[in-house]
Every structure is written in structure tokens, then in C-alpha cells.
């Protein structure tokens, strides 16, 4: 007993990511500016972009032009595909990396402007990023403000497997399980896209049930509640009863809040089941089958043996996907396996789980 405890607390030799053939499930290109999108807009929207001075599209939640979200090296490391290759893909020897554009596009009220922005951004991603480095993949931006057009955007890109998932925010206008969004999930599931939910809010509503927090330090912890709401909504509304193949990837969600939700929702289900009889299995089982979470930033304990307990509470190592959140700085060197994550999980998290999650991900053998 004491021997094994000593072995566990012994500092493991740092494990470089390079050599693992890792797939990074969350990297961020810079957000496109007006000059990037103009080639992909029609005459009407080009006029509107000029006359309304639409250019920098920052989400008020995590504005990337300001500290602490602005990268220390400015936009150099994620300005273009070559910059990202040199700063991240090459040094980590990545097999693939999934680009997530998290920007004000998610929060635009005008459903038609949102549609034009999603479409142009996807084409910009395809031409300026995916076409320039074979290792790159991307999340498809679709207008949740306009589900019909979201479906059309999915159909337009269904033949391009470099887009592996559709991207939503953790906190939007209404819970993501609502039937309003089901046409999006139907199209996504039919073409093998996962649904990605990234940290962030459109600020349609306050981050708490008691109003807006005063400090950024609070904002960050409320993200976990935002994710929890979406897990509850997607399960209870019956999204997985309807779309049994759909996988949902929670990005930058942390993991430690989920076991408690799984225990509680499963217990409550015994009594509340009659209200949602399409939830035919224990919610914890449904959640394990359908939800995946990225590892960076990891919200678990700093000691590896304690973090292992937090992971064990999920009762499923298949739920975790390796990510770096490049280029965002979390105060650790992302070219090494996180020191508080058990190294024996590495192979599974950097490759096996990722391949099992993303039906559309094609990796050369």
C-alpha cells in the first residue's frame, strides 16, 4: 500500500507530446477580419460590411484583443496556417488539430448577417487554413440564430470531411436541447458531424441565476454551470433518443463538475422519469455514451493521484480528448503531457478516443 502510494507521488518523467502522434482537439486560429471575409461575401454583404464598419468580431465573453486572452506573441503564432505549423503543429508532432473560431459571430442578433458570417468564415477556413496544411481540421460555424440556414451550411460542407463538427457556445439564447435546434442536429448526425460546445456566452442572459457577476474570476467558474445546463437540456429533451449517433464534445469545460451532475441526474431520474419517458436509460449512461470533454484547461487537482480520482468518477476514460487550447496561455508548457494527468491515459486521449469520437476524421495511416 505505502509502496504504491510512494510510486504514485514520485514525479514522473515529463512525457513529450511529440512522438505520440497526437490529435489536438482545440486550437484557435485568429478570428477573421473584414479583409479576410470580403472575398467570400456577395455584393450586398460587402456593402453592409463597409457601410456598417463590420470588422473585428469579438465575443464580449473572452475578447481576444485584450489581455489575458491576447497571446503574448500577438497574432503571429495563429495568424495563418504556416505560423501555426511552426509554433505548434511541428513542435508537438501533431497528426491533426481542430480549429475553433470562437468569435462574435455566435452572438450576432441579425440571423441573415450571422448566416453570411458563418458561410464566409467557413470558406475562409477552408481556403486559408485547411487547404494550406493537411493536418488541420475545423469546426463548422453554423447560425444557431437561423436553424434552416444552419442546416443548409451543413449540407454545403457535408462532402468536406475536414470539417468534423459544428460549433455552439456554452451559453446562448436558449438551452441547446430545445427542438428549435433539432434540424441542425438531424443534419449533423446524418453527415457524421459531432456537436461541439465551446466555453463562452453570447450574454443573452446573465451568467448566473442571480444576475451578472462583478468579476472575471467569477465569470470563469460560471462556465461550468453553463455546460451543466446544456448537458441536462440535451439529455432531458431527448436529443439522444432522437439522434442516437450524435456525439457532443464539450471544449474547455473542465471535467470535475460532471460526475456530480451524473449522480444527481441519475438519482432524480428514478422519480422524474415519468415526465421524460424517452429517457430510457440512466442519464449517467447516456452522458457517458454521448459526451466527450477536452483536457485543456483541466480543472482537476494538481496532484496526479488526486486528478486520477476525479477522472475515475466519470467511470469512463473514453470521455476525455486531448487538447491544448493553443495559443491561449494556461501557464504550462503544452509540448508536454500535463503533469497532473496520468501518463497511462496518454495514448487513449491523444488518438484512440479522438478517432472514436469523430466519424468524419480521416487520418492517414
Amino acid at each position, binding site marked *: 500500500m505505502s509502496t504504491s502510494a510512494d510510486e504514485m507521488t514520485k514525479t514522473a518523467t515529463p512525457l513529450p507530446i511529440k512522438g505520440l502522434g497526437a490529435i489536438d482537439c482545440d486550437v484557435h486560429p485568429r478570428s477573421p477580419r473584414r479583409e479576410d471575409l470580403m472575398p467570400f461575401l456577395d455584393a450586398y454583404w460587402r456593402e453592409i460590411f463597409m457601410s456598417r464598419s463590420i470588422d473585428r468580431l469579438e465575443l464580449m465573453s473572452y475578447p481576444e484583443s485584450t489581455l489575458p486572452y491576447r497571446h503574448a506573441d500577438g497574432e503571429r503564432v495563429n495568424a495563418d496556417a504556416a505560423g501555426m505549423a511552426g509554433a505548434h503543429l511541428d513542435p508537438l508532432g501533431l497528426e491533426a488539430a481542430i480549429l475553433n473560431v470562437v468569435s462574435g459571430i455566435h452572438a450576432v442578433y441579425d440571423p441573415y448577417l450571422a448566416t453570411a458570417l458563418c458561410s464566409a468564415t467557413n470558406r475562409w477556413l477552408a481556403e486559408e487554413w485547411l487547404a494550406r496544411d493537411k493536418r488541420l481540421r475545423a469546426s463548422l460555424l453554423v447560425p444557431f440564430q437561423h436553424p434552416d440556414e444552419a442546416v443548409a451550411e451543413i449540407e454545403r460542407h457535408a462532402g468536406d470531411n475536414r470539417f468534423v463538427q459544428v460549433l455552439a457556445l456554452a451559453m446562448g439564447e436558449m438551452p441547446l436541447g430545445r427542438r428549435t435546434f433539432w434540424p441542425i442536429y438531424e443534419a449533423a448526425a446524418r453527415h457524421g458531424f459531432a456537436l461541439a460546445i465551446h466555453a463562452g456566452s453570447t450574454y443573452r442572459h446573465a451568467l448566473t441565476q442571480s444576475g451578472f457577476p462583478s468579476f472575471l474570476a467569477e465569470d470563469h467558474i460560471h462556465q461550468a454551470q453553463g455546460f451543466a445546463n446544456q448537458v441536462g437540456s440535451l439529455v432531458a429533451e*431527448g436529443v439522444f433518443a*432522437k439522434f442516437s449517433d450524435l456525439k457532443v464534445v464539450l471544449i474547455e469545460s473542465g471535467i470535475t463538475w460532471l460526475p456530480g451532475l451524473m449522480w444527481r441526474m441519475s438519482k432524480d431520474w*428514478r*422519480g422524474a*422519469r*415519468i415526465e421524460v*419517458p*424517452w429517457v*430510457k436509460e440512466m442519464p449517467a449512461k447516456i452522458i457517458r455514451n454521448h459526451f466527450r470533454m477536452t483536457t485543456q484547461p483541466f480543472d482537476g487537482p494538481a496532484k496526479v493521484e488526486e486528478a486520477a480520482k476525479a477522472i475515475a468518477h466519470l467511470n469512463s476514460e473514453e470521455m476525455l480528448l486531448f487538447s491544448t487550447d493553443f495559443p491561449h496561455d494556461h501557464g504550462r508548457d503544452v509540448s508536454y503531457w500535463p503533469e497532473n494527468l496520468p501518463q497511462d491515459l496518454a495514448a487513449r486521449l491523444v488518438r484512440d478516443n479522438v478517432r472514436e469520437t469523430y466519424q468524419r476524421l480521416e487520418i492517414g495511416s
Partner: protein
Amino acid sequence: MSQAAAGRPRRETVRHVVCRVDEIAPGKARRVEIEGREIAIFNVNGEFAAIGDRCPHEGASLCKGQIMGLAQSDEPGQYRMIRQGEFVRCPWHGWEFDLKTGRSWCDPARTRVKSYDVAVTDSAQLQEGPYRIDIYEVSQEGDYVVVSV
């Protein structure tokens, strides 16, 4: 455990008359105490079922629960009730139990209440059998609900 089991003489099942049939209407329940055990007797569509009258969750009296069917769904937003009258919902937190087996619908393998054999026997048979029943109780006309414990 095996020692205790081996050391304890196996007790004969004893049949207990609990009430007359007409004392529990279809869809109703009655709580009885037999040898210190609280047992809920249900009239399920004219047949009788007996389960322990204590929800394994937090101990509520199940005979105060709603007797109902089982809600099923083929897809979200569609509902249908099957096996009407064969389940009881705990009055406190809504856990559902199959009256015939005592099993929880949500967790049949691990969560269950004790179910008891229950029979309806007429008074003539009772007087003939070697059962430890106060036959003065059954001297009246009519059928009796008998629980085996």
C-alpha cells in the same frame, strides 16, 4: 454469512389472513402488519399483490402511493401508458415499483422492495388446511386475502 445461514433453522412459511376481499377495492391499497413487518396489499385490477410497505429510497409508505401504469415513449413528445394498474409510484419521490415483482422500474437489478405471495382463499379451504390462522377470524361468509410470510 454461510455460517449464520447454516446455523439458522429454516422457518416454515406461514399463511396469514389479512382481510376480506371486499375490504380493498380495485386500485386501492391497505397496509397490514404481519410478524412485525409492514406490508402493502394492493388490489391490481381485481388481483392482489403484496410488497413491503417501505420505499428502499427513504422509507415512505408505498400503500399511500398512486397505483398506475407505466409511461412509455417511442420518441420525444410521444407518450403512452401500458400495464395500467400494475405499478405504484412512491408518494415522496416518485420511484416506480412493479407490484408483481417488487422491482424498481429504473433499476430492477439493484433496487427492489420485498414482494410476498398473496392469494385469495375462501373460508372453507382455510378451515381445512394446517395453517396457523385464527379461524374465528374467517368464520364469516366471503373470501379472504391471505399473505404468506
